[in-house]
């Protein structure tokens, strides 16, 4: 199929504003009469709240509102409860604090200095409780309980997913080789450069208006409606450009605090979290993964036992979903007749872990892809060939029952291996030794969710795309414009497609900007909206030309009679004619996720991998990346430069998680919650040689064959690096981050 716009690396629609410093983020917004909010947070990881006295703070001149548990009496106007899966969170702590940074109170004042002074006047008496900060210790008998009164959180387990296929015992009996190992990953943090923040007020009609850099505008609206016990339509959530998110800005993070302060102060309130608070607001799940793998002598996988212990911190958050998805894919993209996988989502006295790019898959991919490498070595089989031999292929049934489709693993693995010449080893024997490694991954999206879009033709020949997909850097605005332009048959050059950014009053419903779903789900909605608009234009042109719309063609923004190209009108001319007589909008609507879609659409898989060459210094343990290749199956790359950017950026977070990042806690106390002490990948941590491989196995239900790819590289990176280190120096590191100390210790113990 010949495309006009799809497959072209056009400049980002938001690009020029961003390089000029003109793009507006939530942090850039102001409102007359705006107050500044600050939050009082628990210094203790676990304590009972004996007394919270805000009276002195409230009396401080310049303070307009203080929120504490006293504002949430039983039967009062505000409900304190919210939460992604379970309503276990409260706007402010009611009876206990469960992690350092848990919210005790909040203040709105004329300026930050006054707000900070007011925080110091709030008197809190804590009764410290025993702390549990390790997920395995948290489920042991006698461990301190985070929610002693909640039966569904018994033994600190807030969710358990079990996946069974075949007969696991028989599987291991039939296996010639059995591997069993434990893998560990630490707490990490998203570190989006724009901190969480929100600006909220109540307007003259009593509506709550809130600007916030969220990935889930409709989710925020729903949760706020529950807190304020008002109709969702009385709340308007507006999302400016978002300065990075990676999962960390989904659902309520700071919005509820700005809104409740605005409600109490009857003034606009702005809250911007300090960086330290960002670290305590949402994190990535630390994990312990026990994995047992059985295979035949010829490399055929037979059995997989997996136990996942994910540390979700003090509240369930997205944890149950994260654990669920990770557990369901713990056999990797491989045919495995006998599977038993159990995932536990465990509460501890640490900040809440939520969604983070990869959504639980990186932790388990480290385990299964290390095992693939170990098997390849044990059995003397090439590690690419071993993977390819076992792949789930087009039409195969995944253990979840989903049919595999648009899964270009074989091509991807061969290209990844080829790109680093995996077969040609050049280890050396000196101080510095080189090694190569490869890994792949599989992750589900959430294809079954809904998105609606509108495309409008304007009086000046431009188009407006109404889409609540949040532009957080991934390029949603640009991709939606390309999809709309392609469907309409309009060249993007010279025709502006103006994005109407997410605003729950203006843009139709969208489930969320997460799970790499937007290109697929919103992309389908936008394509359908554009098609709907095109049909309206065709009918109008058919009337004007007195021919059947069946006999019309569209090319280059022009509608013309088939076989008589001179007879026709441009969209711009048609719009001008329409608006010369009528003032009703020329607008097309599209919805994705209806009953028909639910029956026919095959969920898409994120398909990706990584190949890497490292150099290990055997004297210091330092690991240097010489080359890293990120790969993904894009289905169809709508904008290849954006796709490459997603894969490379995703892989770079993977580098951080593999080699550097750990948010450390001692007995629940964070010790490095700042950019000074938390090591992020910098210019000096990535290789110059950093290509991206895009495979295109079109998805039958994706817009023009496209699907998501923004989480395809990260989950494979730590395993690929660990495998390369083994190749270089013969030690298996099974705990992240792979610091020089860990490598050196392993070399010493070897």
């Amino acid at each position, binding site marked *: 199929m010949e495309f006009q716009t799809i497959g072209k690396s056009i400049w980002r629609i938001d690009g020029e504003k961003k390089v*000029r*410093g003109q793009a507006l983020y939530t942090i850039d917004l102001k409102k007359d009469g705006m107050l500044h909010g600050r939050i009082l947070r628990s210094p203790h990881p676990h304590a009972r709240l004996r007394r919270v006295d805000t009276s002195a703070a409230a009396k401080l001149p310049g303070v307009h509102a203080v929120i504490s548990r006293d504002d949430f009496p039983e039967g009062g106007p505000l409900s304190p409860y919210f939460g992604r899966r379970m309503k276990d969170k409260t706007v402010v702590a009611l009876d206990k604090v469960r992690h350092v940074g848990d919210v005790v109170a909040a203040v709105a004042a004329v300026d930050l200095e006054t707000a900070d002074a007011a925080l110091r006047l709030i008197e809190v008496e804590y009764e410290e409780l025993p702390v549990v900060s390790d997920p395995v210790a948290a489920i042991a008998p006698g461990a301190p309980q985070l929610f002693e009164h909640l039966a569904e959180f018994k033994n600190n387990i807030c969710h358990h997913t079990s996946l069974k296929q075949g007969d696991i015992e028989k599987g291991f009996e039939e296996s010639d080789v059995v591997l069993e190992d434990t893998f560990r990953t630490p707490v990490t943090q998203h570190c989006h450069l724009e901190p969480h923040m929100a600006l909220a007020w109540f307007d003259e009609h009593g509506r709550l208006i809130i600007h916030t850099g969220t990935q889930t505008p409709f989710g925020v609206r729903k949760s706020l409606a529950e807190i304020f016990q008002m109709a969702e339509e009385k709340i308007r959530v507006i999302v400016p450009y978002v300065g*990075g998110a*990676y999962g960390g800005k989904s659902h309520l993070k700071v919005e509820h605090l700005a809104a409740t302060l605005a409600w109490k102060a009857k003034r606009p309130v702005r809250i911007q979290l300090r960086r330290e608070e960002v670290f305590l607001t949402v994190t990535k799940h630390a994990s312990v993964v026990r994995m047992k793998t059985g295979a035949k002598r010829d490399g055929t996988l037979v059995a997989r036992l997996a136990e996942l212990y994910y540390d979700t911190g003090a509240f369930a958050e997205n944890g149950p979903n994260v654990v669920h998805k990770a557990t369901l894919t713990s056999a990797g993209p491989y045919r495995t007749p006998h599977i038993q996988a159990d995932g536990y989502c465990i509460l501890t006295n640490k900040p809440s872990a939520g969604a983070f790019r990869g959504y639980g898959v990186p932790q388990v991919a480290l385990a299964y892809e290390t095992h693939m490498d170990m098997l390849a070595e044990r059995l003397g089989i090439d590690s690419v060939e071993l993977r390819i031999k076992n792949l789930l292929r087009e039409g195969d049934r995944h253990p979840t029952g989903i049919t595999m489709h648009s899964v270009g693993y074989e091509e991807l693995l061969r290209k990844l291996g080829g790109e680093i010449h995996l077969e040609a080893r050049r280890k050396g024997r000196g101080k510095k030794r080189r090694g190569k490694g490869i890994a792949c991954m599989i992750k589900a999206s959430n294809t079954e969710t809904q998105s609606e879009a509108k495309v409008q033709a304007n009086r000046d020949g431009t188009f407006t795309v109404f889409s609540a997909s949040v532009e957080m850097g991934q390029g949603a605005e640009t991709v939606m414009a390309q999809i709309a332009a392609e469907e309409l048959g309009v060249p993007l050059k010279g025709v502006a497609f103006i994005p109407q950014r997410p605003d729950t009053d203006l843009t139709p419903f969208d489930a969320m900007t997460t799970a790499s779903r937007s290109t697929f789900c919103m992309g389908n909605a936008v394509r359908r909206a554009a098609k709907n608009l095109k049909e309206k234009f065709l009918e109008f042109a058919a009337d004007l030309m007195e021919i059947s719309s069946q006999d019309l063609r569209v090319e280059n923004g022009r509608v013309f009679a088939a076989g008589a190209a001179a007879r026709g009108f441009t969209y711009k001319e048609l719009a001008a004619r329409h608006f010369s007589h009528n003032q009703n909008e020329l607008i097309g609507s599209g919805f994705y996720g209806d009953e028909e879609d639910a029956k026919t659409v095959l969920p898409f898989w994120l398909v990706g991998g990584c190949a890497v060459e490292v150099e290990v210094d055997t004297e210091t343990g330092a690991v240097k990346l010489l080359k890293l290749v990120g790969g993904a199956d894009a289905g169809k790359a709508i904008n290849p430069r954006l796709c490459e950017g997603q894969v490379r950026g995703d892989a770079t977070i993977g580098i951080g998680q593999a080699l550097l990042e750990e948010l450390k806690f001692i007995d629940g106390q964070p010790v490095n919650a700042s950019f*000074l002490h938390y090591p992020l990948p910098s*210019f000096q941590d990535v290789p*110059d040689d950093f290509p991206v491989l895009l495979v295109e196995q079109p998805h039958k239900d994706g817009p023009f064959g496209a699907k998501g790819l923004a989480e395809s590289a990260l989950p494979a990176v730590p395993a690929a690096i660990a495998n390369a280190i083994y190749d270089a120096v013969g030690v298996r590191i099974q705990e992240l981050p792979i610091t020089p100390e860990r490598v050196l210790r392993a070399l010493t113990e070897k």
Partner: protein
Amino acid sequence: MITLNINGTARQLEIKALETLLAVLRDHLNLTGTKDGCGEGVCGACTVLVDGRPVSSCLLLASYAEGKNITTIEGVATDGGLHALQKAFLDNGAFQCGYCTPGMILMAKALLEQNPNPSTGEIRDFMAGNICRCTSYVEIVRAVKQASRKMRRRAKGS
């Protein structure tokens, strides 16, 4: 009352004694292109040029910048259009969310002013204090190199 020379224009302002240059730019002058990332001078999002040298405006007291020439992202493009660096950032996909971009562009501008033809290693070293969480940095290095080539060609031509 202090006078700040910002992007070629003298601005007279009433400020508090301990206000940072970042706060003054963003809150008093509405020059919101300069971003606030960490508040402790580590991420580079707030980078501006003071007499041509890059500084973290979140750490610099505004009063220290009195009488000096301050360049922010708003002063990088000319009437003739985008700066070579801005175009190169667009061409190379050197940003995604764009939050670090103003700081990155100013840091790169400072580099190219003192070293018109930097090597990859020199770019990485000079810009190591600027964090980007979206891209791989490789795109930014490519953009700086592309801009460097264009600027040198233009300098030769003029």
